[in-house]
């Protein structure tokens, strides 16, 4: 184990842009939350320097590999990602001086590719028909073929991914709500957010709500339809008290409402998470915190905002 703690992470990144990861704003959703039994608060993860929640695990996974002595300068960091983790790892590796290669499905949005290349990382494009699962299989193949060359951080299996949320996101929410949070709602992709925040807040009595897409073919970037996808090793259904599903059309409609009614320009996954939180708040009272993973800017070239 890496023995990473928030204090050690702060020490390692002091004086760099990485110091600004975390401590993101928590804001009330006054209009979308009006008339509901529960009170809605949104954790705005686009405020991280790399633009998404993935800055947190990106930083912790790289620092964990450094602390464990696996990341000598001659080695290359490797992972599979369709976007935000790639951007986060590329930013972190640029600052820490590591080479990075990322397996990504071809025909992923052009913004992602350009941002990742801007940070100096190399992309390995995989069959677009196989989606993220195809990129995972290629990263596994590359890591097995050249064990000395690559440090495969594997966000789907890396304990530093949920740990970043257990010791970062969860305690932040606890403090920002003056210890009054009653529910936490987030989508499941690698599952690091749900598993980590659950470890931090469930022992304090917070109800954890995990949301997945309702269909294997969906438009909720970053979320996984678990029954038909490669199951992340870190995923544990028992981390959540409640499991819900969300339709892409409803998620897109809510992302548009977030922009127009709350001034929050969110990705579709943020719309999906908030629409799920609204459903929870219709049924239950309390202080409901929902995680908005990234901003809408990253999807401007897709048809979603036309």
């Amino acid at each position: 184990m890496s023995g990473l703690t928030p204090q050690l992470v702060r020490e390692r990144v002091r004086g760099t842009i990485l110091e600004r990861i975390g401590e993101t704003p928590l804001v009330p959703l006054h209009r979308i939350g009006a008339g509901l039994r529960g009170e809605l608060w949104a954790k705005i993860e686009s405020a991280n320097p790399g633009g998404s929640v993935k800055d947190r695990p990106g930083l912790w996974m790289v620092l964990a590999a450094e602390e464990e002595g696996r990341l000598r300068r001659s080695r290359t960091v490797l992972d599979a990602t369709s976007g935000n983790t790639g951007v986060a790892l590329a930013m972190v590796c640029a600052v820490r001086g590591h080479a990075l290669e990322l397996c990504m499905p071809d025909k992923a949005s052009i913004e992602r590719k350009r941002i990742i290349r801007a940070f100096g990382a190399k992309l390995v494009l995989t069959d677009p028909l196989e989606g993220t699962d195809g990129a995972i299989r290629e990263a596994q193949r590359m890591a097995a073929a050249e064990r000395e060359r690559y440090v495969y951080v594997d966000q789907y299996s890396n304990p530093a991914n949920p740990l970043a949320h257990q010791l970062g996101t969860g305690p932040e929410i606890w403090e920002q709500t003056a210890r009054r949070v009653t529910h936490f709602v987030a989508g499941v992709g690698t599952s690091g957010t749900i598993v980590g925040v659950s470890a931090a807040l469930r022992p304090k009595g917070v109800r954890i709500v995990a949301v997945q897409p309702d269909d294997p073919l969906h438009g909720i970037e970053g979320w996984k339809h678990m029954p038909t996808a490669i199951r992340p090793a870190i995923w544990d259904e028992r981390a959540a008290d409640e499991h819900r599903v969300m339709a892409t059309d409803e998620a897109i409609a809510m992302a548009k409402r977030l922009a127009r009614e709350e001034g929050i320009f969110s990705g579709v996954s943020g719309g999906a998470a908030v629409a799920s939180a609204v459903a929870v708040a219709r049924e239950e009272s309390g202080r409901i915190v929902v995680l908005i993973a990234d901003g809408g800017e990253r999807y401007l070239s897709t048809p979603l905002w036309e």
Partner: protein
Amino acid sequence: MPVTVRLPGALRDVTGGETKLTASGSTLRAVIADIDRRHPGFAARVLDPSGGLRSYINIYIGEEDARARGGSDASVPEGSEVMVIPAMAGGR
């Protein structure tokens, strides 16, 4: 006019496990309708209720994005390869 259609794994449930099909039709809409006749429910997965391409699906005819060629009205030349690709992916 036969064309080859390649599908993502996420549509296997509606095609009985197949990810490569042969279909006929001179427009994308006709090709989709042809597949839907053999695999009912297919059209509803890729087209929205108004008949346009769902916003989270990209379809390529050869190397060209069908949206740039008229969406579901795009012409599909005989022998071409049509690829249906999820615009988004899970896990990031």
